[in-house]
């Protein structure tokens, strides 16, 4: 039997004497897409960061790709992180940055290439392959800081994929994007998953971002998991109203999901 991509037991994360996260049990099976949902401040990003070993003080067990994060040395943790692609919520976009799109994608190969080694031909081939597959070829020599927000998200996704990861962690991959770009990013995630069969953990707070192939959702609120299961079973009208306020209803159609105001179909 294949081990789960992510397995969490009795995880608690505290910061400044405040409990940020308290999760009894969470399992993401290998080669599946799972979504971690919840309102702002629910602890979604903290959970993702715990999976990468970026949360320094926590209690409980976090196993990622069959490795117990708490027991890894710095070197072993770095090796594990090479097997995990990560797309953070916030992107560094300051204008002073001289890096081109190709150089940013190449960052994904850096850990795998290892210290004291320059990139091999294979490394650059992998970088260029993901630039092509995500439709960034025309932008590859442009400065990262000069391209649009959607293109930057695709660049960071290409960077994560250039790692040839076994697990992809996406933190709000459609944040600050318009509907067109959001749909393109969702489509890209679905296609990548279908083509490579990697495990994907997606953090978002909008139901619209959940791809149709995602059949497992974990719902967090105030650092605790309050529900898990299929999107249809987790997001009921009652639960959405309790979480986000009255006057909202959920629509599930063709594997996609949306929240509308009550009577929204007449608006």
């Amino acid at each position: 039997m294949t081990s789960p991509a992510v397995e969490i037991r009795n995880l608690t994360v505290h910061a400044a004497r405040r409990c940020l996260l308290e999760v009894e049990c969470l399992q993401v099976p290998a080669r599946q897409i799972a979504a971690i949902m919840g309102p702002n401040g629910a602890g979604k990003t903290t959970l993702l960061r715990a999976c990468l070993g970026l949360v320094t003080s926590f209690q409980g067990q976090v196993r990622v790709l069959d490795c117990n994060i708490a027991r890894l040395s710095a070197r072993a943790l770095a090796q594990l992180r090479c097997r995990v692609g990560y797309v953070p919520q916030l992107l560094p976009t300051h204008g002073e940055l001289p890096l081109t799109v190709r150089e940013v994608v190449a960052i994904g190969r850096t850990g795998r290439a290892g210290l004291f080694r320059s990139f091999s031909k294979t490394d650059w081939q992998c970088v260029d392959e993901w630039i092509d597959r995500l439709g960034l070829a025309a932008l590859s020599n442009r400065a990262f800081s000069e391209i649009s927000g959607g293109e930057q998200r695709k660049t960071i996704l290409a960077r994560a994929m250039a790692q040839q990861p076994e697990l992809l962690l996406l933190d709000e991959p459609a944040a600050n994007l318009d509907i067109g770009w959001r749909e393109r990013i969702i489509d890209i995630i679905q296609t990548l998953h279908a083509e490579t069969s990697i495990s994907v953990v997606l953090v978002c707070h909008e139901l619209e971002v959940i791809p149709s192939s995602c059949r497992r959702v974990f719902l967090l609120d105030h650092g605790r998991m309050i529900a898990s299961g299929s999107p249809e079973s987790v997001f009921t009208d009652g639960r959405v109203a309790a979480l986000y306020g009255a006057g909202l209803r959920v629509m599930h159609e063709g594997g996609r999901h949306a929240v509308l105001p009550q009577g929204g179909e007449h608006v």
Partner: protein
Amino acid sequence: MFDLVFWLPVMAGGALAGASSGLLGTFIVGMRIPFLGVCVAHAALAGAVFGSLCGLEGQALLIPALGGSILTALALGLLDPQRFQLDDNVVLSFLFSATMGLAFLGIGLHGILGRNDNDVRSLLWGSLSFCRWRDVGLMLAAGGALLFYVIVFFKELRAIMFSRADAAAAGIRANAVWTGFLVLVAVVLTVNFQTVGGLMIYSLISNPAAAAFQLVKGCRRALALAAIFGAASGLGGFLISAVTDLPSGAVIVLVSSTLLAVAAVLRRLYWAGRRF
């Protein structure tokens, strides 16, 4: 008459200080922490001041100066900003104020204890005109070590420049590489500091790199152009000051600032041209 034998090491020192500062400035400005230069320079000054209080003088002050700057670099590198939830610039401002306070406390103690502080005061402003081949040799060794480090860890430093947190998340040994780089920054700046002074170091770190970022894309090109701009500022500034008899430090700072202004205007003209 222009005595080439006397002024040649001065010109070489100015060009070398500019080139090495431009090189490390590319990463420092790229990470938006140009304040690092002033912070390390003041840590070196604090080290030298307390070295002087202990009876060291002349070239021997380089040892405590290196000690002060390397300790500060290690503190900055090993302090995990995520654990302490502090921005790099906040840590820098803390270290800068602490080292500046220590430096001026030490200078004050010189007066109280009746010690001669001429050596220490000359470090504040540098003394490019007194740069000799021995100083050039030291600058060359420090700059060479920096260049070697940048070549060996180029891909890691490029990733760290983009985002230290992202680099660590991608499996790069970001803290180790960054701390090593900071130690070299401390060595290069301390060696340059005694020749060119604190003010000039700051301008030679920030301006050539910022000018290069205006004109080229790509990390390698930015590094090369920043080093060239730095060397041009150091050498050009000295030559202008020699011809006009103006203070060399001030002219070098102004040349590097002018380079940045010209680069920014050229970039605007380029973008305006592309729109039409």
